[in-house]
């Protein structure tokens, strides 16, 4: 992951994109172009707009990151356009992308070795240094805790707790929500593990989401820093795991049949690899203080 290189915004004419562009402008993010077919030649907040990604590349040189803000049904096409223009990092900020579009995109991204965050990802923030995406920087302060999260609102909540406790955040990654998510805990843990300013890691899960098995292995063998996981709504009947095909079918065929996997099983699995599971956001800062000291 390269935080610095040149950045383009695909779908810069969307309202959310304009809001995010203004915040990133303040942060000094190197946004060199916006892409919006039919709006080429215009300027939005002093950012030149192009019709095609290819045109931006040929005029401005290598683009490192594309932030995709287009409508959900145009995401696949926009991402394929970015990949065709050799952009190695893509953050899909819009959610609601049809899962089969993501399946197709991920196959392509694997072949080209493109890094993708999202869909529905707020992006990445290193407080007061890097802002890529649509995070609201007002909720973050520089500090020592890294966060990888499936829930943006809970990321803000935990950041508020960390700020109050004087811990702050070293780097925050938003994976996205719902459906097929391009990269998961497993892809980002190595980056936080290697990051020197990160002294502890918080993982925020999703109740009805999918969890990568690979992360657990990595956590067991490679991560020496304290790791705490929080999953919302654990004790609630709403909590269901979407998961794998066999579980989906089992759930589908009968209500009475016990599902193969419950949230509780996941928690036990996390505990096995020395990851603390917290059921209260407000207790996390104290846990971290204890663990970091030891």
């Amino acid at each position, binding site marked *: 992951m390269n935080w610095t290189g040149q950045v383009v915004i695909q779908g810069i004419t969307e309202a959310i994109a304009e809001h995010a562009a203004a915040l990133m402008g303040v942060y000094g993010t190197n946004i060199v172009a916006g892409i919006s077919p039919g709006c080429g030649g215009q300027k939005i907040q002093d950012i030149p707009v192009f019709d095609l990604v290819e045109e931006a590349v040929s005029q401005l040189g290598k683009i490192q990151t594309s932030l995709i803000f287009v409508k959900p049904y145009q995401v696949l096409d926009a991402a394929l356009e970015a990949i065709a223009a050799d952009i190695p990092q893509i953050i899909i900020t819009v959610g609601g992308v*049809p*899962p089969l579009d*993501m399946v197709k995109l991920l196959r392509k991204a694997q072949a080209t070795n493109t890094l993708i965050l999202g869909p*529905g990802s707020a992006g990445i923030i290193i407080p007061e240094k890097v802002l890529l995406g649509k995070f609201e920087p007002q909720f973050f302060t520089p500090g020592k805790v890294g966060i990888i999260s499936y829930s943006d609102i809970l990321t803000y*909540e935990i950041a508020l707790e960390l700020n109050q406790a004087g811990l702050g955040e070293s780097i925050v990654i938003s994976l996205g*929500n719902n459906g097929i998510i391009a990269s998961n805990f497993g892809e980002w843990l190595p980056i936080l593990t290697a990051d020197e300013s990160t002294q502890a890691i918080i993982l925020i899960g*999703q109740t009805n989401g999918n969890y990568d098995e690979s992360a657990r292995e990595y956590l067991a063998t490679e991560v020496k820093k304290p790791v705490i996981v929080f999953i919302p709504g654990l004790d609630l009947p709403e909590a269901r795991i979407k998961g794998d095909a066999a579980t989906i079918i089992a759930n589908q065929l009968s209500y009475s049949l016990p599902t193969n996997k419950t949230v509780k099983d996941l928690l036990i699995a996390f505990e096995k690899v020395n990851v603390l599971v917290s059921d209260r956001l407000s207790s996390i800062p104290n846990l971290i203080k204890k663990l970091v000291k030891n």
Partner: protein
Amino acid sequence: MELLEYQAKSLFTQIGIPILPSESIKNSRELKQLQIPYPVVLKSQVRAGGRGRAGGVRFVDNTIDAIAAAQAIFNLPIMGEYPQVILAEARYNTEREFFLAVVLDYELKQPVLLGSVRGGIDVEALLENMKMVVVDTEFSPFYARHLAVKMGLSGQLIHSVSTIIEKMYHLFREKDLDIIEINPLGVGADGKLMALDGKISVNDSALFRHEDILKLASPFFSDTNLLSLENVAKDGEVGIITNSKDLALTTWDLIAKGKKKVSLCLVVGETSSGEMLPPSKLNQQLQMALEQALTLPELKVLLINILANAETIKTVAEAIANYLQPPIKPTAQGGEDRMERLTGTLSRKERKSLSSSKKSEKKQVKPIQLVIRLVGADIEEFKQLLVTTPVYWTENLEKAIDKVLSGSKK
């Protein structure tokens, strides 16, 4: 969105998966004109599982029996759902029954083909015999043949079953399905295949690019409807309004830990796929949510828990202040109203809805404790608008929860 059996079967027909002759019936009188020869089976068209056991599937031999059975089925709710349609279908004698499905596996991030030679209602046997093939590149018919062989099929059946799987896969792909399932796939004595029952579930986020399927949805279907979490306790004393499902679950969890029951949990300003709606839409939903919450007779505490950027929080604070502010002039609805306003706890909306409902007119209305947590902007000016309304304001989640727990005590 899950389709009903008769809707799924009409899609099967379109792609050439064989189904029995059938007719959908909206009214038991329509059975008099039934074109299918008796005996027939009548099937309640509901989404809930276990309809056979619940009495939603009946075999009939003549028109008189059929009308009586149809009337019974129309009046039989299954898991709370009354059928709008009954499917009348010819009967079929099978030698064997298979299970076939194509599902999107969220862990593998790939479509998966599934099959079992023990289809039907014996779920355990079905699952024990389930075979699986992951479609990890562009689909080609060999994946389907692979599954057929894994299932233990041989000879002509490899060909006929894999042809059905292939068709299922194409529909899965074309219509953005989460699940397509045939259970059972009947195998006749002559080896002929027949999809006897089927399920199709279309991915909600893709629904709006499939007009034909959208037509089958309820006219009220929208991914921007006010989201209401299920499994609330009707006799609960706490209501929650928040602006994200994750925050709703987290808040609910904290209240449940404090041994209080939640009777209402609404998410405003977020689509079902987790997208933020613009502040204007959020405000509109917030009003609906407040209206819904303040009419609940058992409600003792209402917690509004919203975290957002400064711009959104200011519009939300303004909307709440406007909504809850005591009206300047008494709305001529009688003395009771005035009494209530003197206690300064209720909104005019609540009074309006309560007095319009005869039942609750005489009921002593208990004041509702409002706990409001808005995080993201300075909202002092809006708090000033509500000085006469007792609201507990805090930016701290734990303090808000403490107040909710103490405020819901008797």
